[in-house]
């Protein structure tokens, strides 16, 4: 694949080009107070270019610098929002469905793991034809990815095969080697057009080499040292090991932050409200770590917390593949960073694998 070179200013330039050229709203990571969120980016000054993030289990700190990864938010917050009004019913039982499509959208500076998470949603909701998702998804007219040459401490995308470089499903990708060298690559004809409009030069052999060295290092850092198939088979064998699952979840308090921040967790519940003369049906995200999940009339499927934590892990590595032939985990590490008690999914799968491998 042809690589191009530019500088930081070219990222900003490309932001302006895609916005104008595609007449679209740009969504991506942006600064919000002392933290970062995924939201509408009004101007290039909001892009998290001079931002560094330190992320460890249960820990996230923003400072100035060059190594921004991602935040507790993700493109999920746009494509599959936490709360969606589905429809309203009036007293004559007329049903009004809400128009929930978006203006044309460009996802800008999202991460390779985010793209992988969108692929997971596409399969889940595309196959089941979820109109609320598909309306929003269809409004995405362009995807610009930032590769991670400086991955977070909790990232393990290399193990999951979802990063740290962009692999598919993007139009344009860029990677910050340093302040003066940013490597660009086109992933579609739209990407080629953007490259041409931005007047980017071809990268030299030396540029490419510097990029590849950093990329190899990033791949090494984001590799758990266990294969996904190993993780999968050992998890399958561990299902009845109550003691093990109690142990790995002993600090868990069932707050469901892990589910909420996971870019591929999609479970939701339906709540009905009465507003004036209308009944409103709302879908909101819920997590399988919440007590409510599995609570049904007359009983509870997973009353004990460890069974819910176990289900979370098993769904990602064992059940998603059965559902959609893709892993439900893209290795972004969010569940680990945003768990307030720092429960680490990498430790969990390593513990299970070391007991049940082979």
């Amino acid at each position, binding site marked *: 694949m042809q690589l191009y070179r530019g500088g930081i200013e070219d990222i900003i330039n490309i932001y302006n080009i895609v916005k104008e050229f595609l007449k679209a709203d740009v969504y991506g990571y942006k600064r*919000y*107070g*002392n*933290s*970062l*969120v995924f939201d509408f980016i009004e101007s290039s000054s909001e892009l998290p270019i001079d931002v560094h993030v330190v992320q460890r289990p*249960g*820990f*996230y*700190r*923003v400072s100035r610098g060059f190594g921004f990864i991602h*935040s*507790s*938010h993700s493109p999920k*917050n746009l494509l599959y929002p*936490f*709360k969606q009004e589905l429809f309203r019913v009036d007293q004559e039982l007329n049903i009004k469905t809400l128009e929930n499509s978006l203006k044309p959208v460009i996802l800008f500076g999202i991460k390779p793991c985010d793209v992988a998470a969108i692929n997971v949603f596409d399969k889940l909701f595309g196959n089941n034809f979820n109109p609320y998702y598909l309306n929003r998804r269809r409004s995405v007219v362009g995807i610009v990815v930032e590769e991670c040459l400086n991955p977070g401490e909790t990232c393990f995308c290399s193990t999951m095969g979802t990063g740290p470089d962009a692999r598919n499903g993007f139009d344009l990708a860029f990677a910050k080697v340093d302040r003066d060298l940013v490597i660009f690559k086109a992933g579609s004809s739209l990407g080629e057009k953007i490259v041409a409009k931005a007047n980017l030069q071809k990268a030299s052999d030396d540029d490419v080499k510097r990029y590849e060295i950093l990329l190899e290092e990033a791949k090494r850092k984001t590799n758990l040292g266990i294969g996904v198939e190993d993780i999968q088979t050992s998890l399958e064998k561990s299902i009845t090991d109550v003691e093990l699952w109690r142990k790995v979840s*002993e*600090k*868990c*308090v*069932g*707050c*469901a*932050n892990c589910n*909420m*921040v996971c870019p591929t967790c999609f479970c939701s*519940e339906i*709540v009905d*409200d*009465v507003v*004036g003369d209308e009944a409103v049906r709302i879908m*909101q*995200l*819920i*997590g399988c770590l*919440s*007590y*409510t999940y599995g609570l049904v009339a007359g009983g509870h499927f997973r009353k004990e*917390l460890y069974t819910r934590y176990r289900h979370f892990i098993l769904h990602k590595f064992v059940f998603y593949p059965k559902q959609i032939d893709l892993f439900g985990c893209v290795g972004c590490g969010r569940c680990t*960073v*945003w*768990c*307030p*008690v720092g429960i680490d999914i990498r430790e969990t799968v390593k513990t299970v694998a070391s007991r049940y491998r082979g």
Partner: protein
Amino acid sequence: MNQVVRALASEEKLLNFYNIVLFDEITERLEMPKKIDLLLIEGSTVTREQEEVVKKFREISDFVVAMGTCAVQGGVQALRIGDDIEKVKAYVYPNPEHIDVNKDVKPVDNVISVDMFIPGCPVNHEAIASLLKKFVSEGLPIAIPESVCSECKRKGIVCVMVAYGIPCLGPITISGCGAICPSFGRGCYGCFGLKDFDLDNSKLKMFAQQLKDLGMDNDRFEQTVKAYSWKTWSKYQNVYHR
């Protein structure tokens, strides 16, 4: 009570459906009614007289709601439990001998049976409005017990504990407030009460340690949960050692 007024005022038609028979702040005190369809009780019982009153009301009421953290959990007055009641009275009143009060504090359901709980200090007016609206159409709101964290996330708030290192009781506190404190960059202090599911002494101990690492010492943690979660806390307390 402000939240109840707010709930009643939230929709024009709501008041058409209800006849308010007793509500000290907004009606004149009438005679004891013969029958009440929906009774909201605020506050815990701390005297024998209050216990008798609550029992009488139960007899004439179809549906009883314990409303607010005091009614549900005991409330801040539970802080005195375990101390000598005479000393506690003397802290507060110049002539403590005139004060007739029990040494324990009873959430409403320790005295009578309760049909529904709406926790909160203060309660969430939307929860009250939801009850008032659904009750007239012969349904009831469905409680969705979760941690405050889920509400944080649905509001799109950045977690103050993980991102800023602020101690937060949200992960162990029952949802319902709409994550008010974290919305303002503060940690949750548990005013809706400890979750009465999913926790046990060892989890609480580990969580208290986590908060301690962030600067909330164990005494402060225990005082806070005692003040807002007496009923649930006392269940764990027997098995909770530092």
